[in-house]
Structure formats: structure tokens, C-alpha cells
């Protein structure tokens, strides 16, 4: 049986099971700085944009706001000027696999969920939400390492996936004297959410994420300013590359982290990065017992 026809743990799952019901939406006339405050307040990566009649007409993500920052748009510019249109929708009853196919083919990170009968937006679906659902499956699985007492005949540690098995091995670096525009270019070129910052002795000292950049925009920091001006307390949060994937996922979920950097031998030797999105896209569970539920990545 090839991978495409394998039955996956996701085969019977619907969008409704994984979606989050809190959906952030703002008027197209609202200024960008209002949008930034809402993203920070609600810890969201994007929001729906509504037109004059209240219907959703677009989406603004942190990436779009960083684009506005890079282009030098005034912070009071309306969200309608930077939104991506139209928003992409799915239905609560759609299969999770079909939603994932849409996200992959459209190269987008979230879908909004619309009730077809009422035309009302009832939720949003992003990769971290799917991690949550899969984590739940994993915990209830008889063969899961989390239920190891039931499987004493097997060596649970042998079955467990480690961070180094699934991490992205290329890490994007910048220097603390690079300016913010250069960092925005790095993020755009590598399609990543954060860059590691190192000092002149090449030691990793901090991280600049998309969140840090939109905050810098809202606070009026010029994009020509050096990275060190926005480093604040964004220390490098990392784990060893031999850490079990399950432990890394749990650390990210509990600490509201989007990603962990992975080190080998010594903490200064950063060799990779793993994000919740990677965890969702690369596989479902955290042990080899779960290979049938792998999500294809293209």
C-alpha cells in the first residue's frame, strides 16, 4: 500500500474537531497599529478583515504587516490596504485531510471555517491546532509511549521520535548590528518565522521573531535601526537535538512558543529549528507506532 492510499489517523477527522472557535476580525478601515495590538493581545498570527457590510473580504497576517513595515507604510494606514484577498474558507464538516490539501496547494498557513447554511464564520484552522488534535490521539493510543505501561515488551525509547529526526537543519542567522530591514529580508527569503541573532564572536544571543518586528513597527522604531534595539528579553529558547519530539511539542505548547532551536553537544552549537507547524506537517504522533498517520509534506 503506497503512502497516498494508506489509511491515516486523520482520515475520519473533520475540521470541526481541530478548529479553534475564537476568530479575530477587524474592519478594513481600522489602522495597522490597531491590528498589531489585537494580534499581541489575542496571541494570534492573523485576523480576518471585514468590509463595509461586515462580510469577510481579506486576511492580514504578521507577514503582511512586516511587508508594510518594510515598505515604509505609515502605521495609521488602513488594514484594507495590506490585506490579502479573498480569505480562504472550508466547512466544519470537511475532512481534515482535504483542508490540509488546500493549505498545501495554496501555500497558506490557515483556513477560516464558514458554516455553509448561515454563511457565518465559526472558526479558524491552522497547523498548531492540528498538532493539538494529533497530540490528543497520541495520548489515547494504546501503542503510544505515553501509555508505556501497557507495552512493557517493547522498548519505548527505541520507538520515540527525536527532534533531530524532524527538525529543519538550516537555521537563519543575523548579527546584532544588522538592521531590521535586513532581518525582514532574511525572513522573507527563507519563509521562516524568526532569525537567530549572534554577536561578533558568533555566539547566539537572542531571537528576533515576526512578533518582535511588528511590535517595533507599532512603537515607531525605524526599519534602519540595528537589531540590538529590539532584542529586549527574547532569549534563545532551545533544546538538545536528541530531545524526544513529544517533550519538545509539550514545551512549545505550554510555553506559547512557536519554535524551539535545537543544539548538539553544547547549547551554543545550534544545529536546527523545530516549529509546531513542522511537528504538524511532518508527522502526527511522536513515536514510530504512529507511522500510518503521517501527514504528507510537499
Amino acid at each position, binding site marked *: 500500500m503506497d503512502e497516498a492510499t494508506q489509511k491515516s489517523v486523520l482520515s475520519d477527522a473533520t475540521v470541526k474537531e481541530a478548529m*479553534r472557535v475564537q476568530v479575530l476580525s477587524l474592519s478594513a478601515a481600522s489602522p495597522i497599529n*490597531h491590528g*498589531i*495590538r489585537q494580534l*499581541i*493581545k*489575542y*496571541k494570534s498570527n492573523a485576523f480576518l478583515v471585514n468590509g463595509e457590510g461586515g462580510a469577510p473580504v481579506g486576511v492580514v497576517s504578521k507577514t503582511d504587516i512586516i511587508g508594510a513595515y518594510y515598505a515604509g507604510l505609515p502605521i495609521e494606514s488602513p488594514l484594507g490596504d495590506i490585506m490579502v484577498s479573498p480569505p480562504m474558507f472550508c466547512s466544519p464538516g470537511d475532512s481534515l485531510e482535504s483542508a490540509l490539501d488546500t493549505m498545501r496547494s495554496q501555500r497558506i498557513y490557515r483556513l477560516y471555517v464558514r458554516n455553509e447554511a448561515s454563511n457565518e464564520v465559526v472558526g479558524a484552522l491552522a497547523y*498548531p*491546532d492540528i*498538532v*493539538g488534535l494529533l*497530540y*490528543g490521539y497520541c*495520548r489515547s493510543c494504546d501503542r503510544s509511549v505515553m501509555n508505556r505501561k501497557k507495552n512493557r515488551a517493547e522498548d519505548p525509547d527505541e520507538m520515540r521520535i527525536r527532534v533531530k529526526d524532524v527538525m529543519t537543519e538550516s537555521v537563519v542567522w543575523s548579527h546584532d548590528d544588522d538592521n531590521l530591514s535586513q532581518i525582514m529580508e532574511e525572513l522573507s527569503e527563507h519563509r521562516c518565522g524568526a532569525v537567530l541573532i549572534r554577536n561578533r564572536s558568533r555566539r547566539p544571543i537572542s531571537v528576533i521573531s515576526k512578533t518582535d518586528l511588528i*511590535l517595533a513597527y*507599532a*512603537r515607531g522604531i525605524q526599519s534602519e535601526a540595528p537589531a540590538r534595539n529590539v532584542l*529586549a*528579553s*527574547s*532569549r534563545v529558547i532551545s533544546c538538545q537535538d536528541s530531545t524526544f519530539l513529544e517533550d519538545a511539542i*509539550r514545551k512549545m*505548547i*505550554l*510555553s*506559547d*512558543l512557536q519554535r524551539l532551536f535545537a543544539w548538539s553537544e553544547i547549547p551554543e552549537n545550534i544545529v536546527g529549528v523545530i516549529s509546531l507547524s513542522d511537528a504538524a506537517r511532518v508527522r502526527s504522533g511522536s513515536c514510530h507506532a504512529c507511522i500510518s498517520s503521517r501527514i504528507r509534506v510537499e
Partner: protein
Amino acid sequence: MYRARDVMQKRFHTLSPHMTIAEAIEHFKRASEEAHRRVFGMIVKDEAGRLVGMLSMYDVLLLIRPKHTQVWGIMTDIEVNGLFEVIAERAQSVHVEDLMTTDVITIKPDTHVLHILDIMIKKHIRRLPVVNEGIIEGMVYLSDLFYFLVDNLSPQGGGTH
């Protein structure tokens, strides 16, 4: 006729937009101790004394709330070690200006108390800054308004105004 100036508190604490949330939390504690009651929200003033926003306890709680709450229910062995460190770190890097509500409803010193009551009920707000020509002169709190009205509308309190 009773007006905002009759019910407003003239002593109140304020925040600066550039304070960190950690500093703002300290101000909340201090304000609650001095007022002998829990302070649920504080106004934010710029260097010129102009009202620029309002920060509520709810805004701070949103920052503290973990993002992936839907997963917490299935995690029975949650280890909170380190969790509060992360929250404290976040409170150091986020400023009051990043979280505050800027669309603040204000009243004037001569706004009638029943009009204030109407605004508070319709808008679901518990406190209203009293602003006169751009300068904040006081705060009207829902609890103060409640006891003011109860005392003055009861037979012992008159109620003829």
C-alpha cells in the same frame, strides 16, 4: 442635578504607555492597596498628560492565558515548572501601549449621573474617565455610581433631585 463631578474619584493612579506590563502589574497592586479595593483598570496618559488609552485586568489576563488552551484539557501531566518564568519574561517585553485599548469612552464633569449609568450599561464598562478640555479630572467607577444612586434615591437619602 447630580453630575459626574459629584461622584468621580479625584485621586487615581495612571500608567505610562512605555511601561512594561510587569511594571503595570506593580502599579495595579499599589493602586489596589491605596484604594482599599481591587482596581480592575487604569488609564494611560502620555507625557503631556493626555489620555491615550486604558489597560484593564482583562487585557493582562489575555497575555497570561496560554495560547493553546484547547490542548490543555487532554494533558493530564502538565508540569508548570518554567511556565511562570515564560509569562514573567513576556510581561517584561510587552509594553502597556502594545495591549491598551485606545478607543476610550470619556465623559465631561457635567455629564448627568443617569447618562453615565446609561453609558455603563449599554457599553458594559465599569469605569469612565472624566475629561475636561483634554485634561483628566477624575474617574467614575461603577461601584461608586451604584452606592451614590442607592444612597440618594432611597427615602433616607432624599431622591428628589
